[in-house]
């Protein structure tokens, strides 16, 4: 499967990833309309995280052993067998936040704008390249096959 890999050495903390993620997940997919007119306002599913001068973009890691999927009490979370993407089915979510409690990366948020449901990266599965990756001005996000990375 593909995963998005953050390179903190080159991340400049500009938050373009957040903006373009929100736009991609908005109704209009238009940057002006999405932020000015849409209600609920789209929220980004990627976040720039920072510690002093170091920053990088963090989104769902689509874990091999996804705790959120295992812990979800309704069945709203599942890992797609073919693509490996951890998918959140908003219709089945009751906002119990169990997924957020067990995500050791802190990559799941509460979407209170829309409905009280969990919000997470869907890897822009409908695009060739996820919006955060294609809009990162410094190539601090790259899309790679997960066999290109060493396991911890």
């Amino acid at each position, binding site marked *: 499967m593909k995963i998005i890999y953050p390179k903190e050495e080159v991340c400049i903390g500009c938050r373009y990833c957040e903006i373009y993620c929100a736009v991609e997940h908005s109704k209009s997919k238009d940057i002006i309309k999405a932020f000015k007119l849409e209600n609920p306002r789209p929220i980004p599913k990627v976040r720039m995280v920072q510690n002093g001068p170091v920053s990088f973009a963090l989104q769902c890691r689509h874990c091999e052993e996804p705790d959120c999927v295992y812990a979800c009490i309704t069945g709203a979370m599942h890992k797609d067998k073919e693509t490996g993407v951890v998918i959140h089915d908003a219709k089945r979510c009751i906002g119990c936040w169990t997924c957020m409690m067990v995500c050791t990366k802190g990559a799941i948020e509460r979407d209170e704008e829309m409905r009280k449901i969990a919000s997470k990266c869907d890897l822009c599965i409908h695009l060739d390249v996820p919006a955060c990756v294609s809009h990162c001005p410094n190539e601090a996000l790259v899309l790679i096959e997960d*066999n290109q990375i060493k396991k911890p």
Partner: protein
Amino acid sequence: MLSERMFQVKKYKYLIIGGSVATVAAVEGIREIDGDGSIGVVSYEPYHAYSRPMISNYLMDDIELEDMYYRPLKFYEKEKVDSLLGKTVVKVSPDEKKVFLDDGDCISYERLLVSSGGRPIIPRINGVDKKGVYRFLSLDNAREIKASLKGLERVVIIGGGLSGMKAAEAIISIGVRVSVIEMMERVLKPVYDETACGIIKALFEDKGVDVLTSSQAEEIYGRKDDESSAGGVMLKGGKKVDGDIVIMSVGVIPQVDFLKDSGIEINRGVVVDKSMKTNLPDIYAAGDVAEAYDILLGINRPIPIWPKAYYEGRIAGLNMAGGNEEFSGIFAMNSADFFGLPTMSAGIVNPEDDSWESLVEFKPEENYYKRIVLKNNKIDGMIMVGDAVDRAGIILGLIKDRIDVKDFKDKLLDKGFSIADLPASVKRARIRDVALA
């Protein structure tokens, strides 16, 4: 005749007792390794696996059974599983490798998983057999309660634990008055500390729920016009709490009755090793029925929570199919939303003495509360209420992986605390990768 009957004995490579999360997890685990081996599932609940925690949503909202299915209705069919629903296993016979059902049938197995979950604790209270006394553990329970609620004025709930409080939330939300009777000095005491319990209690009282703590239910008395139907609960000391129905929610214990003469080792729950094997060959156990290793307390004990049931069920399934997986253990963890207020806790939340330290941030006006319980720079527990729940899993991960937090302790309470603040090795593990190969 006998031989003819014997030919009809069903036989499965994998037989699973139970029809809930641990069962589904085991099926998924088995199918990761063995795509074809025959699987049979026997469950006395006549429903496709559903989300048990959602029975409070069922009570409160206009939702149907279909909205509660834990996996799509076609799940068993797709995974080539024979599901025998509405059937109860009354006996397990490990010598013959057979289980016996209430309808007289028996089923042979090569490998057996016991994932029979929990059964309600029946408190020693007079009058529990009266009409209008319900439990709150299953969809059937919720259906009975829902059907009886129409036209009722007042409900009494015995037990202020998580499911009792979820029932109270549901019932007050549909406009029926509720009293909760709790024996301990506060509701949810095992799950939260005094401050968090205080916030939650105030919230319930604000919504109109009567919360009676330090109150022991002694008797369910009858109605004036009908002694055989519940009319309320008499407390120790003589106080009467009237109610048209009574819901008993005093907890669950492992459902092990049918294992009595099987030779399977049972302590408080079924005793399992790290691979989810019981003491007998080819018999595994997982979920609420089984004890788990509590990595914080260092003991084996039942921990009746959904995530544990999944983790264990999956590992049991993988191992039944020839895998070699171990469950590293777990600790108590709960996340519950009350009237839109998110609350969470994990691990040790009421430390016994001051060998633990606590980092606390409490903003009463916002219902914001975060407490992190530590000893020797390792986090043993966490409590979050309100917006403090955001990214709580990072803290939970530090508990689970026993990470030394000395170098970033001062950041643990920060709103912006993220994995960027973790030591490099932990951070990299969280990002999932060490480096590009």
